């Protein structure tokens, strides 16, 4: 019995040490990516190729889900606001909830599962098939050639995708509230413009998406690079990317929100 307890404590300790070790390795890897990204920014065609895969190919899922989220917000907002006779404020509600929270968070979650997992699987498979080792043999740095372009492509495309998500979401809300239900169009837009502040709401939302973009792609490239070079290892790394980056997005969102929106008084 005591031996079992000792083994249990040992396994807990081992896990803690292992996760701290991985965190340190991930930070070192992140710094290395930043340092070596000079070449990838120099050869920008590499980044453009990755922008196509992470950005352009995520467009459809982002646009469709943005439209539906906006439409649902329009319906639900109307349903509740109508009780207080404030249905013309539905535009304000849709715009503020999209710009501050739903746009950045939902598009980052979609981005993590659509593009982040693909990045991890691609890099992990490159490692499993020894392509990364072959690059090193040819004196090509895999971090500069493979990791950094994917990182920068993710960082660039995330704010653009989130902006598209919010913009199409607002039009989705407009579609439901104004065209379907019949809220007055003028008050829909004018109340929205009266309540949404460019610096306070739009810029803070963009800052959020930039942070999420960095977090998601940094996690994705690290998990891919760190994956065990087996089929099982790659699948585990892909799962970890989605789980870790979703948790990171939600945790970072709480931290950023508590810094940004602490009441206007």
């Amino acid at each position, binding site marked *: 019995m005591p031996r079992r307890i000792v083994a249990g404590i040992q396994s807990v300790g081992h896990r803690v040490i292992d996760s701290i070790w991985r965190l340190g390795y991930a930070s070192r890897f992140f710094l290395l990516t930043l340092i070596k990204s000079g070449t990838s920014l120099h050869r920008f065609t590499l980044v453009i190729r990755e922008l196509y895969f992470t950005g352009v190919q995520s467009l459809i899922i982002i646009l469709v889900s943005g439209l539906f989220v906006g439409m649902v917000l329009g319906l639900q907002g109307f349903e509740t606001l109508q009780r207080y006779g404030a249905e013309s404020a539905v535009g304000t509600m849709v715009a503020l909830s999209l*710009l501050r929270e739903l746009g950045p968070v939902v598009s980052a979650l979609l981005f993590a599962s659509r593009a982040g997992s693909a990045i991890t699987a691609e890099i992990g498979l490159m490692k499993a098939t020894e392509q990364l080792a072959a690059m090193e043999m040819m004196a090509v740095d895999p971090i500069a050639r493979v990791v950094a372009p994917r990182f920068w492509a993710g960082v660039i495309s995330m704010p*653009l995708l989130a902006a598209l998500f*919010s913009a199409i979401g607002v039009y989705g809300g407009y579609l439901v509230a104004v065209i379907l239900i019949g809220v007055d169009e003028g008050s829909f837009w004018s109340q929205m413009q009266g309540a949404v*502040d460019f610096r306070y709401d*739009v810029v803070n939302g*963009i800052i959020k998406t930039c942070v999420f973009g960095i977090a998601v792609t940094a996690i994705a490239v690290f998990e891919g690079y760190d994956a065990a070079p087996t089929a099982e290892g790659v699948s585990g790394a892909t799962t970890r990317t989605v789980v870790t980056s979703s948790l990171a997005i939600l945790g970072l969102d709480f931290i950023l929100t508590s810094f940004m929106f602490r009441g206007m008084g």
Partner: protein
Amino acid sequence: MQRATMDLWVGLFVMAGIGALLVLALKVGNLGTYSANDSYEVTGNFENIGGLKVRAPVKSAGVVVGRVTDIQFSTETYDALVIMNIDSRYKFPKDTFASILTSGLIGEQYIGLAAGGDEATLKDGDTIMKTNSALVLEEMIGKFLFNKASEGSSSENSDKN
């Protein structure tokens, strides 16, 4: 896929993203309707600002003409200093009357400007002399109850006489 088509798609994607940002800034946000660049700053002393907040609108005849940028407390006069930016398209006479109003019964509070008749207009850094404090509901109820009570006692007195 060919490099040229890929470049085209990425270019379209970046353009669409920047377009969406512009839509958010101009159509959804207030950058198109009101910009902080061409505005002048005016200060008003209020005895009580109630629940007025920074960024609350400044309205005249119901039209938003500016925003509250800062609220301070003055230890010289022991009242609130409300600093507001007013769009420089709108000039107001020097004797403009500023009051804190509420939109609806429980709506947000804003500053209402009622123009006076002075020839000279407010300039950057000026102070609005005539102000009217916010209506605080508790004070109003207190006054109302007090008036009722004094009415009741005076009518009792008159009955005795």
